[in-house]
């Protein structure tokens, strides 16, 4: 590196080289790109199955959108508290970081609670009423696979964020780790925004 720089003294690198701070981010973005393809495949598959099905019950009627709108709000709020936690830890304000990180984790946990309630309600009451089930209609199959895959991501995110909160509080991890965890968390929020539109509203 220094030799190359010495050989071309006037040449500036077009982009700064990888640093310990930036390669973690690069790794997370690579993972998210792959993960986006998983969700992309599921969402496109959902669209194609729905388009070629002879009967598809209106989602807003079967699923209801009030609770899900609230869930969307929860994830958006927890995304905001995540960036506020990052801003706090970057300026060295640990107590503020802990507070906002705890809110972020709480938002994710509440989201999972809402989803558990929603699923229970659907499986025991709504779906039998419409004579739909996981094994009898693609409506239910695609719904549970898509929202379930996303719910697993939220579960992973809550665990990940809890680890980040613990280790950063102990001083073993720094702001860089919060930023990388933030990327994952915002991605989960971003995917939910799309699922909310394609599965619930359309």
């Amino acid at each position, binding site marked *: 590196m220094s030799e190359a720089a010495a050989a071309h003294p006037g040449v500036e690198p077009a*982009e*700064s080289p990888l640093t310990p701070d*930036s390669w973690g*981010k*690069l790794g997370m*973005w*690579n993972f*998210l*790109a*792959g993960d*986006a*393809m998983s969700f*992309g*495949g599921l*969402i*496109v598959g959902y*669209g*194609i199955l729905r*388009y*070629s*099905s*002879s009967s598809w019950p209106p989602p*807003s009627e079967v699923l209801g*959108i009030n609770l899900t*709108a609230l869930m*969307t*709000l929860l994830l*958006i*709020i927890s*995304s*905001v508290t*995540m*960036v*506020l936690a990052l*801003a706090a830890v970057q300026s060295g304000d640990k107590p503020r970081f802990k507070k906002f990180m705890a809110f972020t984790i709480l938002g994710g946990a509440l989201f999972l609670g809402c989803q558990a309630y929603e699923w229970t309600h659907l499986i025991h009451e709504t779906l039998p009423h419409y004579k739909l089930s996981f094994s009898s209609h693609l409506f239910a199959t695609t719904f549970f696979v898509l929202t379930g895959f996303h719910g697993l991501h939220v579960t992973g995110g809550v665990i990940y964020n809890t680890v980040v909160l613990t280790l950063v509080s102990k001083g073993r991890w720094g702001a860089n780790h919060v*930023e990388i965890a*933030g*990327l994952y968390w*915002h*991605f989960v*929020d*971003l995917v939910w*925004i*799309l699922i*909310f*539109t*394609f599965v619930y*509203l*359309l």
Partner: protein
Amino acid sequence: MATTTHTHPNYMGIFWVLLVLTVVEVGLTFLGLPKMLLGSLLVILAVWKAALVAMYFMHLKFERRTLAMIAIVPFILCLFLILMLLPDLRPA
């Protein structure tokens, strides 16, 4: 260092925009619009919201170009996926 002048984007401002867009989305579904129009509007709003999250919360707007190139790949591949499946589509 050079990063001392870096200011954070207006996170609360982005939050309010996301909130308003969500309310508009839900509101649209009650208006009884034609299916095509409603669908297009909802997709535009969803992509808008997703872009806001990626640009400001995930800092893509302020990052080096390489990360944006990585982020755009899955969208291009998904577009291909849709185009490749179109010939097989038969509305029931």
